[in-house]
């Protein structure tokens, strides 16, 4: 039984169904799992004293389990990716995309807010006879000397509160100092929001570049795994042929088979003339293999 050699029709049918069930796996991982299933059947059949091509579908299924169940082991279960031991995070690209999406909302809210507050500031400074639509009451203009009511706006949260000033707190006066403070804060919020959007866009761009690089690296990794598998197959084939060649040479030149103790199976017979006749010496150039 050689690596990758076709098995019996029933076994091949089982493997085809297993391949379909493993559709969630990336191609290289799926190929590796199928190669291992194939090897498992060959080894197991050997242990049972059965030729792999004689195994029935039912026998293979009894040993390996239903093919459709294999897929679930590849994508679910109690492993670290599905359990609480390692919390699952969305991929970086998705996180950045979310940030970009929400930053637009923040920017959309902050920029008009700053404009509204600016109008309020202008009005509260006495430049406009400001009236709030729908209420009929006015925001009283306040001069620089008007005492503050003690409320301070020093964070971006104040911008949201400032909207309330313009729509519902129509009967209370806003000092110029307060209005200017709100204006400064809301302007700052708008700037930070735009800045956040800019950084988020850069992050999104970087994530896209990383993803592209990762896909390139994945393709190389796929190719490496494929070559590694191929190497193992070719190596096995080479060793088998080397054994055949050594044996042929030994029988032809020395009239006896190659020494079975040779672990590499690549001993080369050399005939040496000695005084009493000829002597066969086997050299094994790849004994360290």
């Amino acid at each position, binding site marked *: 039984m050689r690596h990758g050699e076709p098995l019996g029709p029933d076994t091949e049918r089982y493997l085809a169904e297993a391949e379909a069930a493993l559709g969630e796996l990336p191609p290289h991982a799926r190929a590796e799992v199928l*190669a291992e299933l194939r*090897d498992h059947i*060959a080894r197991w059949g050997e242990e049972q004293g059965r030729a792999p091509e004689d195994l029935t579908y039912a026998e293979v299924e009894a040993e390996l*389990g239903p*093919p459709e*169940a294999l897929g679930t082991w*590849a994508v679910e*279960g*109690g492993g670290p990716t599905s359990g609480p031991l390692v919390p699952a995070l969305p991929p970086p690209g998705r996180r950045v995309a979310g940030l970009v999406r929400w930053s637009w909302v923040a920017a959309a809210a902050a920029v008009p807010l700053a404009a509204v507050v600016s109008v309020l500031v202008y009005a509260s400074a006495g430049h406009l006879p400001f009236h709030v639509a729908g209420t009929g009451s006015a925001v009283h203009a306040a001069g620089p000397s008007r005492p503050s009511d003690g409320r301070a706006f020093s964070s971006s949260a104040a911008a949201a509160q400032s909207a309330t000033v313009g729509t519902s707190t129509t009967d209370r006066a806003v000092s110029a100092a307060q209005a200017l403070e709100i204006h400064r804060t809301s302007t700052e919020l708008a700037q930070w929001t735009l800045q956040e959007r800019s950084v988020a866009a850069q992050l999104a761009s970087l994530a896209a570049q990383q993803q592209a690089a990762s896909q390139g690296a994945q393709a190389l990794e796929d190719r490496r795994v494929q070559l*590694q598998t191929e190497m193992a197959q070719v190596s096995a084939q080479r060793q088998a042929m080397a054994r055949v060649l050594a044996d042929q040479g030994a029988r032809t030149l020395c009239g006896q088979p190659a020494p079975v103790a040779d672990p590499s199976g690549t001993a080369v017979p050399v005939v040496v003339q000695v005084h009493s006749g000829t002597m066969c010496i086997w050299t094994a150039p790849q004994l360290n293999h």
Partner: protein
Amino acid sequence: MVTEHSSVATQLRKGVAPYCALALIAEGPRYGYELSRALAEAGVVAGSGSVYPLLARLQADGLVTSVWQPPPADGGGLPRKYYALTEAGDSALVDFRRHWTQLSTGVERLLGATAAGGRPDASR
């Protein structure tokens, strides 16, 4: 409420099988068939075939690495894919052992008490 015993067994197996595989690999590099036999004999997996996709997932999660080795000189005949534990795999195993000890102790206590017809000892 438990209505499907086979489903419970499957879910229990799926919960512990990855860590049983890691524990076996932690003893030294193992090849797939060897792991599959050991896990099936221990009843941790119902079908030997499920071990291979499980190993693929552990590898994708960075908990194990693997390498194909040519057939051994003793006439094994087929290349073998050997698995070894990574540092992350070792950490996951340590973490699981800690959780498992706590959980299994608690479950044993509850099941033992109820099987004996008594009430679980809440003071312990």
